């Protein structure tokens, strides 16, 4: 603090800590040197090791930024503090960084590593904020890093981080549009997200990056509709606007019959005249009409279309004007005519909001009233103008009132208009007069009344009012000039007084046009005008020439000289336009020898009957812009505006929106359910469920793994009904699963055996792990203990098993595959028995079946294997490799396989099961291994010598090899009593690991620590037979000795294992996409293993 006060003294003690100084603006000080000096102070403060000083310095700097002063020269000093512990300093540094990184790209790179570290933080909020800042730094060099970070965050467990990822997408896109394809992948992934938190943000990203990829929406359409009400308000706006566009491409026009009706002669007006009555009547009436028409062309609304309308309607009650407007435009563009009316009330409500809101809403209402006048008629009075309205609001309200005017309400509207004319706001008065004119043209009955009213205004003291009236009257008179010669006379008199050019021009035009109605006055007016010609405005001059020409044609006797005079004046006018006009008219009307045929037609040319002008609303046809959009407001296409497509002629296939498997029936882990609970829509509470409770996710520190899940009834309910909805594809799955289950029963015993064996060595480790993971909650340790107990249970039978194991060796393939499969399944079952597992009948086997039954079952399986001898094709689970061919081995053939069981004498060794068959006619004796040649570090545990292998017999033995986590071959000699054979065992990389059991959380955590170099990912196209989850699991587990990790998403399969020797983790993820595309990701500290594993897995999955 002392240092800081010293600083204050330096500055004259005028600035207090925590309060940025405005008075001490260096620029206003005027001297640049002081500017420098000051920045030196700031640098000093930033370099100090006191947080208070740093904070003070940062506050000053931020204040500078806020005022738009340049603080970029401080960049090096500031960026150093990016890793500061003080959270406020850190935040302000972020603010600074984001502001100046673009200008100081090289220096900005210094900060990147901090954020990269933050991306791996266990706290979800820190991960999110790191991603947020990282993606806001507009430095092109870090695009790949951003891309990686976004991809990672998009599959983060925390919905908040995923939301941030969605926000980051448009940032990256604007920085480097080349990334579009990759970003679309991420968007696609995030669109499938089921949390409300993410929905709004990802749709926003969609709209900015790839609004044309409407196909990405299909699968998510229903989900978006259903989530909509719980999405935050800003997201709602974006989603609704996007869905409007979507619906326009996917559904049929619900008003198709009504438009037929209109064509058939039924007008809008008659249609709506009942509006003042009860809405219901109106609706019934319409429905009746619609149904009558339906016979002609049946229209059935797509249920998805209906879903959208139904789910957006409650949002009309939102407090957010933008949401209300979005729903209103959706209804206007998509709803059947009879239903559009519901939006009127909500829009009228918005008129009581801030004037800016009113401005926008009125613009949209004005457009709507042209097409659908009826729906606003009941609210006519809400558009009455208040003296305190800003002028622009008044004018818009006038517009709406004019649009709403019809025969029934015109008298009230006109009375209202009359009072407006007395307003002090002249712009508004002028607009009112124009509005009266429009009412008069549109509604024949009141035309005379209006005209009379306007004529009265001609005597108004305000010239602007008069001028405006003249212009409007001119337009009105064009409709029935013959009746109104007295008005024309009256106006002719006005030329003496009125000075506004537009009005003068209008009067002159009128007189010229209808000079036959006022034959006496017209020449006189021309005379006066000729006198003042030189002083008139251009627009008036042109009309004088016009008038002269017309009079010359009709009344040349009186006006010939005058016309000549005017034309002569015009000939020397300064304005070339007027000179041209004069020349042209002279040639046209004054017959000379040269002028040919044209002058004969002069009269026809000038005095042709002109069509009366149509006074139209400026809002007409604006509805081709999507309402509520900026483009609509400006009546011009704004950048990035997405056209609202026309309705399709015939509806595209609605089945594209079918989601094959309702995801939540598949939710396969507690993680998943937890998420679901969190996202349970708030509003659905009212449907009989208990009120929302604090969700598990709300504890920030355990964000990565808090498990306080109370089992929800919903997810525990049997999923039969949903499953029946599944497509045939999944039915097949089920059948397969069914088969699996049967197998399972048989093999449970084996599995348990292997488990228990494994557990013996793993237990200790696991125990330690449990202690380490104290943050994990009870339930998880429960699960651990549970599995332990199941192990101990099975240990009773262990001895038995061991005996049988030897037999089992003779048929090596079935045990291993289901073994892994089983392991996974069982762990899931252990996790919680509320799991809607697709194999309910198996569930009890694990938990309840007595040991004896288990043995029985196993006995069954064994007898099976006896029946089907060891010739079963080695295609499935365990692959047999040939060690010694029987020809080279002179009758002795040896095959080996990796049994995938722990090699009990040495845990670091891979168990290799050798299968010896003596095909020779003589016995083979003393089978053993000699002369082992190994790479350094590798070790071999030989099998015990086989004393005798009689002719025609077979036997097995197990040896252990420590491959030292490499695929180097182990070379040795296989010796019999007579011969030695050089053989080698080369392990496929998949066998160099053993499965480990991880929870999803642990997996995520571990994975996040194995990024960058340690991550290898490949895109692939899945083999046609291997497109379902089940097949993928099978193929991966066959290719590599990994165990499956429960996973929240059905699009992803995760596997984990660790290398046998070093115990490095090996994590594999297969993320599937549409059309068999998939992405394989392997994370492993040992890059060589990782690379090779990727190759192997690719092969396994694509063939």
């Amino acid at each position, binding site marked *: 603090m002392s240092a800081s006060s010293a600083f204050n003294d330096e500055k004259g003690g005028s600035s*207090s800590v*925590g309060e*940025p100084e405005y008075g001490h603006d260096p620029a206003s000080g005027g001297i640049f040197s002081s500017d420098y000096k000051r920045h030196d102070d700031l640098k000093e403060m930033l370099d100090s090791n006191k947080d208070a000083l740093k*904070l003070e310095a940062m*506050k000053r700097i931020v*204040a500078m*930024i*806020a005022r*738009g002063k340049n603080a970029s020269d401080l960049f090096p000093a500031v960026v150093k503090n990016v890793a500061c512990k003080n959270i406020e300093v850190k*935040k*302000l540094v*972020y*603010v600074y960084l984001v502001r100046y990184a*673009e200008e100081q790209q090289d220096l900005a790179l210094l900060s990147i590593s901090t954020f990269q570290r933050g991306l791996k933080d266990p*706290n979800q*909020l820190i991960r999110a904020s790191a991603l947020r800042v990282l993606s806001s730094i507009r430095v092109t060099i870090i695009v790949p890093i951003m891309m990686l970070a976004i991809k990672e965050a998009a599959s983060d467990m925390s919905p*908040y981080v995923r939301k941030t990822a969605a926000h980051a997408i448009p940032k990256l896109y604007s920085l480097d549009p080349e990334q579009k394809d990759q970003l679309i992948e991420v968007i696609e992934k995030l669109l499938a997200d089921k949390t409300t938190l993410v929905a709004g943000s990802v749709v*926003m990203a969609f709209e900015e990056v790839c609004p044309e990829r409407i196909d990405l929406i299909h699968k998510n359409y229903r989900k978006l509709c259903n989530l909509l009400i719980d999405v*935050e*308000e*800003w997201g709602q*706006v974006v989603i609704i606007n996007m869905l409007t566009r979507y619906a326009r491409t996917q559904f049929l026009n619900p008003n198709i019959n009504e438009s037929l009706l209109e064509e058939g002669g039924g007008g809008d007006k008659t249609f709506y005249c009942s509006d003042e009555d009860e809405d219901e009547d109106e609706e019934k009436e319409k429905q009746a009409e619609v149904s009558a028409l339906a016979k002609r062309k049946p229209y059935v609304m797509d249920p998805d279309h209906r879903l959208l309308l139904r789910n957006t309607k*409650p949002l009309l009650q*939102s*407090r957010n*004007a*933008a949401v*209300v*407007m979005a729903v209103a435009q959706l209804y206007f563009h998509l709803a059947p005519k009879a239903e559009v009316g519901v939006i009127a009330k909500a829009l*009228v*409500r918005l008129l009581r909001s*801030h*004037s*800016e809101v009113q*401005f*926008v*809403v009125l613009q949209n209402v004005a457009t709507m009233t042209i097409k659908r006048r009826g729906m606003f008629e009941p609210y006519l009075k809400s558009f*009455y103008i208040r*003296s*305190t309205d*800003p*002028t622009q609001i008044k004018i818009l309200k006038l517009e709406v009132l004019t649009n709403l005017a019809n025969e029934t309400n015109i008298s009230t509207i006109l009375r209202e208009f009359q*009072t407006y004319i007395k307003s*002090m706001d002249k712009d508004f008065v002028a607009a009112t007069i124009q509005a009266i004119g429009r009412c008069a043209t549109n509604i024949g009955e009141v035309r005379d009344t209006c005209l009379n009213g306007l004529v009265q205004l001609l005597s108004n003291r305000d010239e602007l009012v008069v001028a405006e009236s003249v212009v409007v009257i001119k337009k009105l008179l064009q409709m029935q000039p013959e009746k109104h010669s007295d008005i024309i006379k009256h106006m002719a008199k006005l030329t003496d007084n009125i000075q506004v050019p537009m009005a003068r021009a209008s009067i002159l035009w009128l007189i010229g046009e209808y000079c036959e109605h006022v034959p006496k006055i017209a020449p006189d007016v021309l005379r006066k005008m000729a006198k003042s010609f030189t002083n008139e405005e251009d627009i008036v001059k042109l009309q004088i020439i016009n008038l002269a020409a017309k009079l010359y044609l009709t009344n040349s006797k009186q006006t010939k000289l005058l016309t000549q005079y005017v034309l002569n004046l015009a000939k020397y006018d300064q304005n070339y336009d007027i000179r041209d006009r004069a020349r042209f008219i002279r040639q046209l009307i004054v017959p000379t020898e040269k002028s040919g045929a044209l002058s004969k037609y002069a009269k026809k040319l000038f005095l042709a009957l002109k069509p009366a002008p149509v006074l139209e609303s400026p809002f007409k046809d604006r509805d081709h812009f999507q309402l509520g*959009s900026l483009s609509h*407001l400006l009546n*011009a296409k704004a*950048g*990035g*505006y997405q056209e609202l497509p026309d309705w399709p002629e015939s509806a595209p296939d609605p089945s594209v929106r079918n989601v094959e498997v309702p995801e939540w029936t598949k939710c396969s882990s507690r993680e998943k359910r937890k998420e679901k609970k969190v996202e*349970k829509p*708030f*509003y659905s*509470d*009212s*449907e009989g469920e208990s009120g929302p409770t*604090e969700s598990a996710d*709300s504890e*920030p520190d355990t*964000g990565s793994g808090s498990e306080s899940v109370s089992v929800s009834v919903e997810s525990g309910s049997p999923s039969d009904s949903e499953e029946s909805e599944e497509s045939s594809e999944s039915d097949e799955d089920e059948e397969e699963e069914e088969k699996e289950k049967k197998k399972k029963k048989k093999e449970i015993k084996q599995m348990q055996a292997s488990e228990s064996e494994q557990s013996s060595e793993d237990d200790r480790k696991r125990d330690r792990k449990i202690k380490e993971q104290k943050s994990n909650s009870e339930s998880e340790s429960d699960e651990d203990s549970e599995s332990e107990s199941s192990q101990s249970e099975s240990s009773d039978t262990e001895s038995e098993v061991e005996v049988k194991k030897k037999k089992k060796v003779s048929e090596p393939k079935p045990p291993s595959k289901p073994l892994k499969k089983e392991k996974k399944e069982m762990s899931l079952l252990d996790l919680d028995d509320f799991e809607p597992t697709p194999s309910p009948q198996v569930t009890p086997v694990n938990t309840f079946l007595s040991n004896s039954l288990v043995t029985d079952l196993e006995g069954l399986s064994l007898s099976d294997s006896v029946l089907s001898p060891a010739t079963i094709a080695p295609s499935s689970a365990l692959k047999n490799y040939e060690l010694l061919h029987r020809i080279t081995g002179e009758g002795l053939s040896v095959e080996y396989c990796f049994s995938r069981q722990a090699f009990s004498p040495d845990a670091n060794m891979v168990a290799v099961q050798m299968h010896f068959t003596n095909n020779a006619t003589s016995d083979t004796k003393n089978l053993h291994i000699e002369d082992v040649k190994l790479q350094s570090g590798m070790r071999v545990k030989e099998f015990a010598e086989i004393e005798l292998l009689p002719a025609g017999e077979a036997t097995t033995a197990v040896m252990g090899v420590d491959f030292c986590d490499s695929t180097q071959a182990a070379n040795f000699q296989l010796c019999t009593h007579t011969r030695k054979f050089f053989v080698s065992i080369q392990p496929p990389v998949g066998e160099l690991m053993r499965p480990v059991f991880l929870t999803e959380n642990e997996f995520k955590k571990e994975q996040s620590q194995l990024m960058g170099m340690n991550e290898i990912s490949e895109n692939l196209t899945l083999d046609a037979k291997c497109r379902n989850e089940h097949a993928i699991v099978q193929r991966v587990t066959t290719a590599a000795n990994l165990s499956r990790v429960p996973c929240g998403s059905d699009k992803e399969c995760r596997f984990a294992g660790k290398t046998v020797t070093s115990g490095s983790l090996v994590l594999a993820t297969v993320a599937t996409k549409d059309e068999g595309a998939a992405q394989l990701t392997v994370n492993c500290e040992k890059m060589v293993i990782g690379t090779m594993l990727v190759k192997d897995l690719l092969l396994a999955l694509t063939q």
Partner: protein
Amino acid sequence: MIHSLFLVNASGDIFLEKHWKSVVSRSVCDYFFEAQERATEPENVPPVISTPHHYLISVLRHRIYFVAVIQSEVPPLFVIEFLHRVVDTFQDYFGVCTEAAIKDNVVVVYELLEEMLDNGFPLATESNILKELIKPPTILRTMVNTITGSTNVGEQLPTGQLSVVPWRRTGVKYTNNEAYFDVVEEIDAIIDKSGSTITAEIQGVIDACVKLTGMPDLTLSFMNPRLLDDVSFHPCVRFKRWEAERILSFIPPDGNFRLLSYHVSSQNLVAIPVYVKHNITFREGSSQGRFDLTLGPKQTMGKAVEAVLVSSQLPRGVLNANLNPSQGTYTFDPVTKLLTWDVGKINPQKLPSLKGTMSLQAGASKPDENPTINIQLKIQQMAISGLKVNRLDMYGEKYKPFKGIKYMTKAGKSVSSYLFEFLFI
């Protein structure tokens, strides 16, 4: 979405700028200044201005223009609504939203803006969440911070954003648990010269101040919910419950918030609580005009009409007014020609009146505009529509909260005009 934000004061200076994407030069505001110059009144500046490369969307609040710069298509209401939310947040944080307050708290303002928008898209706009992120400055905290060097930034990151009730912060604790609800109704009416009502409507809001521990779940029911014609809710209100039972069921945010705003159906006749007798005349040729105004209460159900303020925009020709109020004080601004009369409470026994003469410009002809009269008033303990809260129940927590409901009627803020009319704003 929103690129940048500029705050412009009444004299046309940019006193704060914030960019969420690439920096946009402040010269873009020149277009705004042009429009500002063209506009006769400050509120006449068009909310949306198109410039060659950008669009400017602005709102005017507390005599500060909040000018947002956008570059591509975005619903204008989206931006406008957001800007208003920003102003509301400032007001919430600093008590007032003035240039001075913003300048004094520029760092907090900056931090707030940073949190509210990410890449131009709103991130956290709920005040409960923001207050957890950035603590509002108080005198006490400022002092403590100065001494201890601690900060305004929350040490813990907010959790509300992640929960199903994003509007409520977690871990709320109070020793006194209280929930107050203010039912405030505003009448908007236009009355013509002869005293008959042209339009009249009632809008109401229920503002709540809820200070309850934990996660309370409240329900509020009305005696006469059918009065409510059109409603809009705070996001916390369960819409389906309202649709089905006409009950407001919600988990409230912590602190002050607007629970509901409503409109009373126009079928119900609106009782105007006061009447005005007026006689304002100008004689042709004379430079004097007479001004005579009397107010009286009407249909107030025995409640006193308070804080009455009458204002009238007199015609331009009026030079001065020499009036005599029976109670209260009046002022006349000869420049804007605005007459305001602060009446105070209306005593039914002795009706307030304002009488006197106006002097007109010599030789000017009789003004042909009619002045409008705007009246503001307040009636305590009465909601003019007759809306009554039936009961308030709390679930989910054990303690007994203290509950309070207050009714008030006001004249509206947005006034209207007629020949000779009373605008009740």
